[in-house]
């Protein structure tokens, strides 16, 4: 067969090396850790955590130069975009992952786990997240989702001899793979409607087809359901409490913060770029997810006796708040931009306060050997500093001024109220009622730590390590900064998507 070689000539893609520098640095660090592991085997164990932490910080350097440069970069036919939104999300992912490394340092070393491989997988997962922040086509989003999920499935099962960890891993894996298969079916329909995997083209095609086409509706339902699983929104939340409880606690913190944020990134990008014109389909869906998550999450959290399960249900309720602005994001006239900024602000603050709470839980559980709420009683008597820190994080999660969580909730309510939609007001009312309920169980846990007496009168001081202290410090500073000086800090999370003409 005579093939005309000229017509088949391969066009080398233009590669903007500066634009993908963060991913390249991360890739280099991951490869370095794998190499160090292969060459030095067990002797490398003391340095891999430090290597991973430094690598994550080094990845932030090109992020800063890109932010200083400030131009939106569109690469590979629009499949990969570097804009304000992606830079801020990448920074959130990297900082959260750095705190998770700090939290893991002693936990993983003491537990006799496979340490070098643990950090390798962690970096691979972070790479998936960083990629997700820039991905603007279906293939990139799918691969980024799997790259961040598959190492996470394995890390949940990392406590190999613990049956609960095994079960949590298998459960998370099966539900995650099923959810991504359903989501893929939705993606295949979007491709069928538009003939392209680029979100921009899909947005044009969906707008042309109109949301009345049944396959468009079906595709949106499948995709939103798939990502609702990832961010653990009700009714796709059932895996979260079990997995959070069974997984090693630093991995739980990673899932609760970074993995959830990555799900939100994909959801935001898909909804606001690929099918903004079909808002009559996804707005009611998101509304139901938000209201159900807030209510169910808080109701069940009220009767939890295990702190990690309590945090899981509180996380489900927080998901409801985070997703709420999207329920009114489809009215044009800047409503999408406002909702986007509100969600990103919430994600940043939530990452800080939730990681902080998990840091305290890890420290205290190391002493008491249990995560039951009763074993946290009387912590003030032997660890006053930690108790104060925990109280700050819990009250921030509840949304009490002047802590960061207050500003996050304020932004959400502002978006809901200014949309001028009756449904927006109703959702704001649901959120307000739920904030009060949430305060009850957060305050109950704090009261137990301050007022009750320690079980068995054990007042021995808590062993504290530098890495845990610095993790607490980072989380505390960010939580307070957003609460005390919101106007100063919120500039960073007031972002736009390049595709929205920002």
């Amino acid at each position, binding site marked *: *067969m005579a*093939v005309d070689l000229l017509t*088949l000539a*391969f*066009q*080398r*893609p233009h*590669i903007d090396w500066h634009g*993908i520098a963060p*991913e390249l640095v991360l*890739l280099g660090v*991951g490869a370095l850790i*794998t190499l160090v592991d292969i060459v030095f085997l067990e002797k490398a164990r003391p340095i891999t955590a430090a290597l991973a932490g430094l690598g994550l910080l080094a990845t932030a350097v090109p992020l800063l130069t890109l932010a200083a440069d400030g131009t939106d970069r569109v*690469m*590979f*036919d629009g*499949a*990969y975009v570097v804009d304000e939104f992606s830079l801020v999300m990448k920074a959130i992912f990297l900082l959260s992952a750095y705190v998770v490394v700090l939290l893991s340092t002693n936990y993983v070393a003491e537990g006799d786990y*496979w340490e070098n*491989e643990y950090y*390798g*997988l962690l970096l*691979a*997962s972070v*790479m*998936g997240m960083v*990629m997700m922040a820039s*991905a603007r*086509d279906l*293939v*990139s989003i*799918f*691969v*980024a989702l*799997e*790259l961040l999920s*598959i*190492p996470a499935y*394995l*890390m949940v*099962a*990392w406590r*190999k001899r613990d049956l609960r960890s095994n079960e949590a*891993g298998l459960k998370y894996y099966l539900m995650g793979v099923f959810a991504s298969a359903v989501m893929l079916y939705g993606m295949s329909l979007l491709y*069928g409607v538009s003939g392209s995997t680029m979100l921009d083209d899909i947005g044009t095609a969906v707008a042309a087809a109109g949301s009345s*086409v*049944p*396959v*468009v*509706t*079906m595709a949106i339902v499948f995709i939103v359901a798939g990502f609702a699983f990832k961010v653990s929104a009700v009714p796709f939340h059932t895996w979260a409490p079990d997995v959070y409880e069974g997984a090693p606690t630093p991995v739980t913190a990673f899932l609760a913060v970074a993995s959830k944020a990555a799900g939100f990134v994909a959801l935001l990008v898909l909804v606001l770029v690929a099918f903004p014109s079909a808002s009559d389909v996804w707005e009611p869906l998101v509304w139901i997810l938000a209201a159900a998550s807030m209510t169910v999450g808080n109701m069940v959290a009220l009767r939890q006796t295990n702190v990690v399960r309590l945090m899981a249900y509180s996380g489900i309720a927080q998901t409801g708040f985070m997703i709420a602005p999207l329920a009114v994001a489809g009215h044009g006239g800047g409503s999408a931009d406002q909702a986007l900024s509100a969600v990103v602000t919430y994600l940043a603050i939530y990452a800080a306060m939730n990681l902080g709470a998990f840091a305290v839980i890890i420290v205290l559980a190391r002493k008491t050997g249990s995560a039951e709420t009763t074993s946290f009683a009387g912590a003030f008597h032997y660890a006053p500093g930690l108790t104060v820190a925990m109280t700050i994080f819990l009250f921030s999660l509840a949304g009490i001024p002047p802590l960061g969580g207050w500003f996050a909730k304020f932004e959400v309510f502002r978006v809901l109220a200014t949309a001028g939609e009756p449904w927006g007001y109703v959702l704001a009312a649901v959120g307000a009622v739920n904030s009060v309920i949430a305060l009850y169980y957060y305050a109950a846990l704090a009261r137990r730590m301050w007022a009750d007496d320690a079980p068995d009168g054990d007042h021995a001081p808590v062993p504290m390590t530098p890495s845990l202290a610095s993790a607490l410090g980072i989380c505390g500073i960010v939580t307070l900064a957003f609460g005390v000086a919101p106007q100063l800090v919120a500039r960073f999370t007031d972002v736009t998507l390049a595709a929205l003409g920002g």
Partner: protein
Amino acid sequence: MTALAALEGMDRLTSGEALVAQNVAFAIMAITMVVAALRMVTTRNVVHAALYLVVVLAGVAGQFLLLGAEFVGVTQVMVYIGAIVVLFLFGIMLTKGSFGEDDGVSSEKRLMAGLVGLLVFGVMAAALVDSFEDAEVAREAPSTTAEVSDSIFSTYIVPFEAVSVLLLAALIGAIVVARKD
């Protein structure tokens, strides 16, 4: 050139006889696949289920050839049938103490699952028929492997590189989790 077009008298994909042959081939494969898939999810023998899965996967590869996606079809045979099914068989072999666990599935649970399955199919079929009505797959020339690779190495280069990281991470993690220690 698809496999079918290479046959004598079928030089044009859209010629009448070729079209009939394609539809017959489609029907035979589709019926086989559906029967095999149904047997796969209902049989009690796990090894038989894996073999029925092979039939479905081979059918999918055949459909790819019919649609002119030869590279994907060959990949389907090599990766799915050649690697993934073998993995499944290894998994079955190493967990053979668990055979027969499915015997006790309550009939209510099956009924519920069946109803959900039927409902899902009904909704999907209605949506698809309504949206695409009688659109034809009318491809003049099947895609060449060169087109596929050009696309992978330009537009989709980032996910391509990411998949290599993914495979390495999955490999290392799976070994750590599965090995005895």
